[in-house]
């Protein structure tokens, strides 16, 4: 597909600058100016055709089932887009005074209360613009907490099943990462953990339910082992969807967590952002939240900037406000029963899909799963791999599952159907996966050379990395 620059023709235009004919009363010295910018010249029709064509080369949740494990690709309600486009919200300048911003401040304040009700945490900050940003802020809180206590702890523990962002966030704050092994049944190895926790351990980060889609049965003991030595327990909330209305994260013993609003609370992923990764903390950690914090006073809502123990500012303004607004609308729409139903149905759907696939695909850890489960390619005949399956499923009109993650399962195929897929869709996905298995037996080439019916065929990633071309040069 040609890029938009290739459609440029001299003299075309899709923007008319108002002709107010103002004199340049205060010219900028010529030496500071450029000699003109050569971007492109295209008409509005060219633009519309180009981006409409591009959109048709994309697969989204609205196109079909998107069972990308740990990404919670649930349906994004259309009403959320409408509310987030209201001019009262979109046109509000972030440095407007609190008197002009009461509506937005109320949304942020109440959303923190709702998330607190769901998780048991004390308060949330919406400054983090994504899950990884929430983690980073969380690790900064951990660092500040121990600084304040006058303790010098240099290690953060992370299970071998963790997302890559966990160790990367830890490293960005100068902590050392130590990896905690999992048992063959997919729980944290409690004995090994107990031996690793000492006075140099600041915290452990754990995704709950974990990235195998399993609820760690020893969660209470893990928390106890950590707390007994004064360490904190961080919850990566990427998989919160599974326990909505079923159990509170704070009650499990976690001291702080981030939530991915773009996963659990249905805000669109946008082709890779904008997300929102609010950080929630216990009472004890509340003073360390990033500034500003939205509070309610006698004259209405306000931004509290003067917080002595805060980790400081982490965003230009207050995070991705319009994303938080969508999550607010979603929670108000669902109410307490709907939130619980979302979690329950997500788990029901995952277990049902697992029941349809387990006879044909190897299931490394056989337990009741939560919102997702992990298969692998161990039983695939004729050298068909996880990557081949991922590419072939695209031909059946589904997005691929998450592949080769978590790292502790070789050839992992991680499937998360979410609660918004109905029974027929789950069954047709299972039928497609089983059909691929049959193809692998009878006609493996068709699987290995997939995809065949996508807008482009298998993309050469090796060439892209070997000879990087990162911009169009005409």
């Amino acid at each position, binding site marked *: 597909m040609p*890029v938009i620059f290739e459609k440029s023709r001299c003299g075309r235009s899709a923007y008319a600058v108002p002709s107010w004919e103002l004199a340049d009363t205060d010219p900028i010295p010529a030496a500071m100016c450029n000699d003109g*910018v050569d971007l492109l010249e295209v008409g509005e029709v060219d633009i519309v055709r180009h981006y409409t064509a591009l959109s048709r080369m994309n697969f989204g949740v609205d196109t079909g089932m998107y069972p990308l494990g740990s990404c919670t690709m649930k349906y994004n309600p259309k009403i959320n887009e409408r509310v987030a486009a209201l001019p009262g919200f979109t046109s509000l300048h972030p440095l407007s005074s609190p008197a002009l911003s009461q509506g937005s401040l109320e949304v942020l304040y109440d959303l923190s209360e709702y998330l607190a009700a769901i998780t048991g945490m004390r308060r949330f900050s919406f400054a983090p613009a994504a899950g990884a940003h929430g983690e980073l802020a969380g690790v900064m809180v951990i660092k500040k907490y121990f600084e304040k206590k006058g303790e010098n702890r240099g290690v953060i523990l992370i299970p071998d099943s963790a997302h*890559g962002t966990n160790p990367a966030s830890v490293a960005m704050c100068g902590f050392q990462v130590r990896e905690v092994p999992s048992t063959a049944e997919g729980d944290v190895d409690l004995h090994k953990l107990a031996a690793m926790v000492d006075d140099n351990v600041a915290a452990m980060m754990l995704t709950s339910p974990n990235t195998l889609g399993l609820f760690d049965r020893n969660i209470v003991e893990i928390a106890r082992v950590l707390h007994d030595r004064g360490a904190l327990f961080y919850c990566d909330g990427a998989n919160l969807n599974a326990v909505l209305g079923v159990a509170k994260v704070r009650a499990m013993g976690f001291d702080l967590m981030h939530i991915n609003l773009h996963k659990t609370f249905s805000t669109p992923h946008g082709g890779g952002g904008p997300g929102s990764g609010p950080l929630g903390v216990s009472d004890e950690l509340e003073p360390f939240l990033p500034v500003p914090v939205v509070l309610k006073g006698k004259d209405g809502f306000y931004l509290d900037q003067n917080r002595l123990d805060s980790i400081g500012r982490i965003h230009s303004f207050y995070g991705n406000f319009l994303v938080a607004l969508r999550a607010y609308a979603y929670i108000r729409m669902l109410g307490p029963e709907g939130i619980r139903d979302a979690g329950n149905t997500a788990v029901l759907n995952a277990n049902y899909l697992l029941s349809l696939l387990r006879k044909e695909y190897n299931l490394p850890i056989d337990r009741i799963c939560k919102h997702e489960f992990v298969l692998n390619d161990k039983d695939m005949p004729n050298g068909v791999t996880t990557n081949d399956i991922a590419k072939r499923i695209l031909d059946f009109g589904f997005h691929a599952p998450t592949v080769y993650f978590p790292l502790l399962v070789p050839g992992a195929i991680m499937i998360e159907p979410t609660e918004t897929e109905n029974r027929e869709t789950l069954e047709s996905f299972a039928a497609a996966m089983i059909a691929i298995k049959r193809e692998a037996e009878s006609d493996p080439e068709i699987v290995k050379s997939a995809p065949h019916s996508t807008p482009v065929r298998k993309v050469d990633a090796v060439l892209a990395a070997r000879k990087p071309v*990162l911009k169009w040069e005409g």
Partner: protein
Amino acid sequence: MNYTCSPDDDCSVMLGSIGVRDVDDLFADIPDALRLREKLDLPSALSEIEIMRLIEDLAAKNRPGRCFAGAGAYVHYMPAVVDALASRSEFYTAYTPYQAEVSQGTLTAIFEFQTFVCKLTGMDVANASMYDGATALAEAVLMSAHVSGKKSVLAGDALHPHYRAVLETYCRANGLELRILPSAEGVMDTSALAGALDTATAAVVTQNPNFFGCLEDVAVISGAAHAAKAHSIMVVTEPHSLGLLAAPGKLGVDILCGEAQSFGNPVGYGGPALGILAAKGEFMRRMPGRLVGKTVDADGKEAYALTLQTREQHIRREKATSNICTNQGLCALRAVIYLSALGNAIRPLAELNHRLAARCKTLLASKGFLPIFDRPYFNEFAVRIKKAPVVMKRLEEEGFVPGVHLGDYYGEYADCILVCCTEMTSPAEIDAFAEAVARCSR
């Protein structure tokens, strides 16, 4: 209202297939003591009709007004084509483009975004975008420190105070030292800079136009940085200025970062924003964030893919260049559509922005509200208004967002406000604003 669809008979078939009797059995692995028996303490469910009313009422509690505030978030005209195309759900309901074969729309648009950023800035390589301008700066500084192995960073005090605060937060976490240089008459004091540069300096950070709206002599600052073997990092918060001003790539800038919200994204109370990060070619393999590269498919057809991923956290984990795992994909798409529509008209639009600001500045001066700096500026300038907080409050009552009070950030500028004009403040509205400032000052 909810979005699940498992009627009871489906549910019993599914439970039967799983081999359990009740949905509750699926949570048997959660210790009993943790199980929530009571209903969540949330407001009751609402219908779509009720939600719309509720949220319209909340929106009505905001008063966006006629905006003369800039300072890192800019109100510009949004061509209808931006919303029309960016609201196509194939774009906004997709995930990060890991499966390139079904993500060519997103990937091509990001490749175009990288191209636009390079064309506008004159830099060699740009990434797929960052969270916002402030974190883009923090990541730029971390990259400079990693590449140089040095631990000290210099920044002028005319850097956006929020950017400075975010940079402080990141520097503290990473054990880097941030030193703030005073400005002289609204721009970086180059003699103070010369005195502060030493062998430990990784980078010098300059915002241009700076927070006061003044234009810096970036080439001179870059020269001083290079003489001390430090990187020159430039921050831009109003990228429309690049339509008129010399490209940072021609001013010796090594790393360019900043905010591109003003290209096609609403101010939206500050987010989502759109961070940009671009650099000289030598930084390519040390950049944080996503990069999209051009390649071919199995039939030899042009295609795009995420590339150089060995820099990233999902492969390198704690040794990654950053923990960043997403970009602001949809905001970048909006910027691409906006810039496609604007095209080479970015130059006359930038000129118009400057002339409108000049009109406002001259009018205010004629009424006795004098600018505090005598420096070239783009579309923002600082002006002294006695009892600024009181005057601003009155202006708010008249329906204006009257700029940003500098006294909130700089003790020495207690009676000064930062005023911004764009094509959204017409000459007539500027005249009305100047009249209102005079009236509210009486």
